[in-house]
């Protein structure tokens, strides 16, 4: 039960990351490596500020803004200086590594006694929990903290999802979707596609940094390495979400990213429980994304060949 709740909680926190990757990768068709640096940037800024005595809201907002700036920088490199999108992201990601180290002062910065959102949620959960910190859930004892973490994280992810849905149906939000679809069209309609891409990457990395900030508060520390593989992780979530909802409607795609993140985390937790070596986790994730991206084409071909073979026979 605690395995399940823990996975659901982290999955919901990382849903924000999946939403961020959805914005860059699906809306703008931009494989944005900046995300790997922004996760850590968000975590580093949040923890450093919390340790420095700021309150959780200020620290988390600052982390989100820092992510937005990193994304905007990648956007400027790509649209103003005409750098290849992947390269622009890699440059910023690499630069962020040093910046993150400066912010944290060392490679791993624990939250210690500083108050984060996790502390707030802990205080709330303590009111509902038994003396040993557990509550009864479906007839079984479960950690009250894990339960409340999950509930709050899921509610927050849902709220962000709703706001994104509203935003992408405003004049400027729809223009962003159109830019990813067809930049020529949005130029012919009088909007600066370079600006819209830059703003979109800022939004994407703001979400990713927000996920990093909340993840650091959830697990109690920021780590210099925590961003590695996060882009692929987010992609896996987005892809799972697309097959879960099976719809092209924008709202479903957003909800799918959240569900995909939670489900993927759950799958990982189960796989680890069954004896998957944690060292192999990123390899397995990468293979999963590869298969998910490549397989649909091959399945189609195979089906066509089988159908063709049947026709010949």
């Amino acid at each position, binding site marked *: 039960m605690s395995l399940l709740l823990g996975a659901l909680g982290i999955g919901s926190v990382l849903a924000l990351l999946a939403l961020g990757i959805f914005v860059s990768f699906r809306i703008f068709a931009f494989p944005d490596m900046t995300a790997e640096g922004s996760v850590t940037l968000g975590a580093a800024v949040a923890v450093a500020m919390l340790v420095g005595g700021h309150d959780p809201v200020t620290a988390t907002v600052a982390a989100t803004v820092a992510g937005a700036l990193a994304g905007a920088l990648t956007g400027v490199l790509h649209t103003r200086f005409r750098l290849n999108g992947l390269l622009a992201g890699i440059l910023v990601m690499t630069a962020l590594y040093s910046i993150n180290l400066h912010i944290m002062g060392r490679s791993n910065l624990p939250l210690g006694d500083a108050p984060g959102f996790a502390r707030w949620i802990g205080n709330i959960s303590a009111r509902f929990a038994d003396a040993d910190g557990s509550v009864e859930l479906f007839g079984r004892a479960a950690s009250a903290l894990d339960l409340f973490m999950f509930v709050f994280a899921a509610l927050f992810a849902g709220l962000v999802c709703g706001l994104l849905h509203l935003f992408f149906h405003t004049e400027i939000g729809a*223009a962003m979707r159109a830019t990813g*679809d067809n930049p020529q069209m949005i*130029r012919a309609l009088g909007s600066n596609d370079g600006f819209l891409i830059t703003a979109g990457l800022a939004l994407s990395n703001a979400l990713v940094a927000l996920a990093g900030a909340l993840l650091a508060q959830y697990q109690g520390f920021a780590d210099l390495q925590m961003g590695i593989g996060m882009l692929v992780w987010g992609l896996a979530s987005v892809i799972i979400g697309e097959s879960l909802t099976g719809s092209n409607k924008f709202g479903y795609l957003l909800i799918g990213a959240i569900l995909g993140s939670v489900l993927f985390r759950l799958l990982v937790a189960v796989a680890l429980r069954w004896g998957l070596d944690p060292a192999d986790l990123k390899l397995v994730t990468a293979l999963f994304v590869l298969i998910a991206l490549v397989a649909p084409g091959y399945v189609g071909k195979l089906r066509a060949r089988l159908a063709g073979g049947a026709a010949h026979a």
Partner: protein
Amino acid sequence: MLEIQGVSKTFHAGTVNEVRSLRDVNLSIDDGSFVVVIGTNGSGKSTLLNAVAGTFFVDTGVIRLGETDLTSWPEHRRAALIGRVFQNPFSGTAPNLTVAENLALAERRGLRRGIGRLLPGGARERIQAGIKELGMGLEGRLDNAIGSLSGGQRQALTLLMATTLRPQLLLLDEHTAALDPRSADQIVRITDRIIARDGLTAMMVTHSMQQAVTYGDRLVMMHRGQVVLDLRGAEKRRLRPEDLLQRFEELRRSDLVDPAVADMLRRRYV
């Protein structure tokens, strides 16, 4: 009034691939005039339209629309004044957005896009009425992704998008060339109707001799980056497809001769 003065453009200058696409082009188009532009492949007719639209900056010359000097304006800024339809039916619309969303984006061409709702109350009805006027039976497909429509349907909607806010200039770059003959005919008729209804100033590049003689009040023929023929009024109205084909044949024959030799022969014998 559109004024193109001394406009030249060379692509890949200084390399073996150097192409002098426009050579000192001068053209001025009166308000309300519908100009058909024809020419051989590589004659610079599409390049001329793109120079006006701002796809690239010209090497020399000035492009003025009304009182405004557009020469140094980027493409998206010029779009506030200019409506465009492209040769590729996929270029003018965003496939994953719905028909209504595409048109709503076009209703703010060149205007500031804020955080107001894209489709506020009443917008759908207005958009639907506009689509109905096209007469293509698309008014029931407001919520379909525009990518699910045919090339002809998308081109008709692109045309509506380019003209829903009255443009000072409408640029049509072989916008029927990628369509089947029936759709092409339908689109060019709708084009003519909208231009006449709104009294638009328009430039239409076409490969179809039939379209060139039937539509517009002025015809410009381009060859090797220059305007070689400019007919209007009664001359344009009398024009038949055979006349144009004969012109093309003359151009082809003069191309067989080296330009320097042609010039010498002309001086000696003409």
